[in-house]
């Protein structure tokens, strides 16, 4: 009996000691593996080592879709993490989930300086009033990658002006005439050649400011501007000037192997291309059609943001705020930007990177930042906020494949994608009203 009592006393003492020194622990679920996974772990370790009140536990939950599904399933089971990484196309789904998520600006409290964040980056994730709903974690934007050696080998000046699609078209003609198998390829066709193309030319992708104005939005990417672009791409595909490699970033392998002269891909492709390319490559701004617009607007981001889930204690939300503040701090943010090629989320981090001479040493790494921030975003270039958007991208992929294969013309394909996508938007509206 006596021994039982003393054992209980020891246990009680241990429990209370544990409470007294307990750190507040929060879960952070993300979708990164490989080098990016290591960099996330490094950030978390740095944060945990920098203070003793809070502890962040990071876990990898699969790719973007799988991470989102893991978060949703966990919420349904009451086991949701404090922080969940959600890719940009899931933004409308998360925003509509009132009661499941807590807006970042509420978590951060009164002295949260939202103006420190770059407008065109955070704009994708803010409410109509400009309040930050989710925390922009990794953002990139499409740029044009150029294989300078391949241009030179085929008698084209590697410094040739590639700022407009008209000029690109002429270069593609020369490359095809010189017998190059892959003059142009792309990754993420919907994101680059429809979503960004629309924003870049200040043309609506969808009504209601691309869905920012409400869930009663309708797709609008079958207007003459987009039809002209997709039509031109379709002709290039038929002539063997544009090589379609797949729905994701399969084209990257072709470019990195030195087979393709031009490649439209995310600015975050930098690390991979730098590691593998055995040729002289260069980053150029995404081309625009000078026939459609004198000066390009701005491109929009892709990537993911961190959502704060509901159902946790005040201490845990304090820990979340501390971690997000840490991620926003200039040193951490500048390092993240330089290591990954993702855009900096604060103006200060961008400035610090410039002052360190990083852009001079790594020419072209600032193209994405300039392209994003050159102009104040308009209603057409702030971003996209559409329900079921991952699926709508799937529909767009299918219809674009019909264009590249020569089965449909651009107008018919885009009309069909708009009609099919609108049906999904109406379902999303019903599910969330």
């Amino acid at each position, binding site marked *: 009996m006596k021994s039982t009592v003393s054992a209980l006393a020891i246990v009680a003492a241990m429990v209370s000691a544990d409470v007294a020194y307990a750190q507040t622990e929060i879960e952070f679920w993300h979708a990164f593996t490989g080098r990016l996974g290591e960099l996330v772990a490094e950030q978390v370790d740095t944060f945990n080592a920098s203070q003793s009140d809070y502890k962040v536990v990071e876990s990898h939950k699969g790719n973007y879709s799988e991470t989102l599904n893991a978060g949703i399933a966990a919420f*349904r089971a009451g086991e949701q993490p404090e922080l969940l990484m959600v890719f940009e196309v899931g933004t409308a789904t998360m925003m509509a989930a009132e009661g*499941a998520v807590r807006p970042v600006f509420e978590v951060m409290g009164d002295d949260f300086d939202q103006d420190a964040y770059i407008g065109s980056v955070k704009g994708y994730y803010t409410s109509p009033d400009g309040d930050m709903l989710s925390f922009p974690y990794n953002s990139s934007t499409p740029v044009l990658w150029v294989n300078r050696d391949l241009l030179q080998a085929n008698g084209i000046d590697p410094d040739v002006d590639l700022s407009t699609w008209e000029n690109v078209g002429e270069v593609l003609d020369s490359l095809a005439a010189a017998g190059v198998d892959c003059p142009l390829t792309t990754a993420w066709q919907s994101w680059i050649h429809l979503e960004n193309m629309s924003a870049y030319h200040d043309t609506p992708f969808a009504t209601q400011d691309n869905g920012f104005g409400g869930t009663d939005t309708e797709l609008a990417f079958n207007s003459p501007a987009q039809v002209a672009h997709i039509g031109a791409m379709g002709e290039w595909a038929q002539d063997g000037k544009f090589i379609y*490699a797949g729905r994701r970033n399969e084209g990257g392998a072709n470019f990195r192997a030195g087979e393709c002269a031009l490649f439209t891909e995310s600015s975050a492709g930098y690390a991979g291309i730098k590691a593998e390319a055995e040729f002289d490559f260069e980053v150029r701004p995404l081309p625009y059609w000078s026939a459609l617009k004198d000066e390009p607007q701005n491109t929009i981001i892709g990537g993911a943001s961190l959502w704060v889930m509901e159902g946790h204690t005040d201490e845990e939300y304090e820990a979340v705020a501390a971690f997000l503040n840490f991620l926003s701090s200039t040193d951490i943010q500048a390092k993240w930007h330089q290591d990954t090629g993702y855009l900096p989320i604060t103006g200060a981090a961008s400035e610090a990177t410039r002052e360190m001479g990083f852009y001079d040493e790594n020419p072209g790494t600032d193209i994405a930042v300039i392209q994003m921030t050159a102009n104040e975003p308009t209603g057409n270039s702030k971003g996209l906020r559409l329900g079921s958007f991952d*699926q709508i991208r*799937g529909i767009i992929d*299918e219809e674009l494949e019909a264009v590249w294969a020569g089965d449909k013309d651009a107008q018919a394909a885009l009309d069909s994608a708009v009609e099919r996508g609108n049906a999904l938007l109406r379902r999303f509206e*019903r*599910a969330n009203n």
Partner: protein
Amino acid sequence: MEKRITFKGVWLPLALIAPQIVITAVFFFYPAGQAIWQSLFIPDPFGLSMTYVGLGNFEFLLSDPFYRASFVTTAIFSTLVTVVSMGVALFLAVLADRLIKGSGTYRTLLIWPYAVAPAVAGVLWLFMFNTRVGVITWYLGQLGYDWNHVLNENEAMGLVVVASAWGRISYNFLFFLAGLQAIPRSVIEAAAIDGARFWTRFRTIVFPLLSPITFFLLVVNVVYAFFETFGVIHTITSGGPQQATTILVYKVYSDGFVGQDLGSSAAQSVILLALVALLTVIQFKFIERRVHY
């Protein structure tokens, strides 16, 4: 003449079948019931609200020409997978059955692919047919054929069929070989003495005697092609190009887990369930008649 075993009392037989009933209830009746219930609603992904729509999800699906086209795709895909995997397996089994030396080695090697998970099989075949670095693509290129399953619908279908059928050949092979070895040698020898050649013996004796096995494999392979080929489609084509390889079960996944449209996904599961039940009934009613046990 059927043998009937009868138990006295109720409890022993109940206890004996209870494990099976419990497993079926937990892993089949309960989820199937949930799917039927959910198919009547449009829920939001987080389970915060549900809108009752009656048969609205079914109307939405059946009025979608792309969903209806998916039935045709599924029919073509399942037929090809079943025919290819059973045909090749039967051919190999007949050859292995005639082997005298080394049959054990052949059998073991032929069974190996069954151990490969569908998703991994998909990746293996994708590598061989990769449009850029694939070995087979390269050989086809040497022969002057430009393989591109990324844009060519028929090539994409061919590739997912081969990748799906490949692992299944092993499974079918095992059953066919066992069936062949169960056929009494005396019957075949008697026919041989009467002057029947191999092909005649196969057609009139072996194949009819194999029919119970063939029928069993037909049912199992159709179910496989309908449900378990998801991993192959997901890794190789994601349903593309266009919608060339979007089979019904892939659409259940993509609407449910990519689109978070759980109402539509549940309705599709119900349709798929009904379809497979119907197919199995048809198989038992019309094909089983021709089976000799």
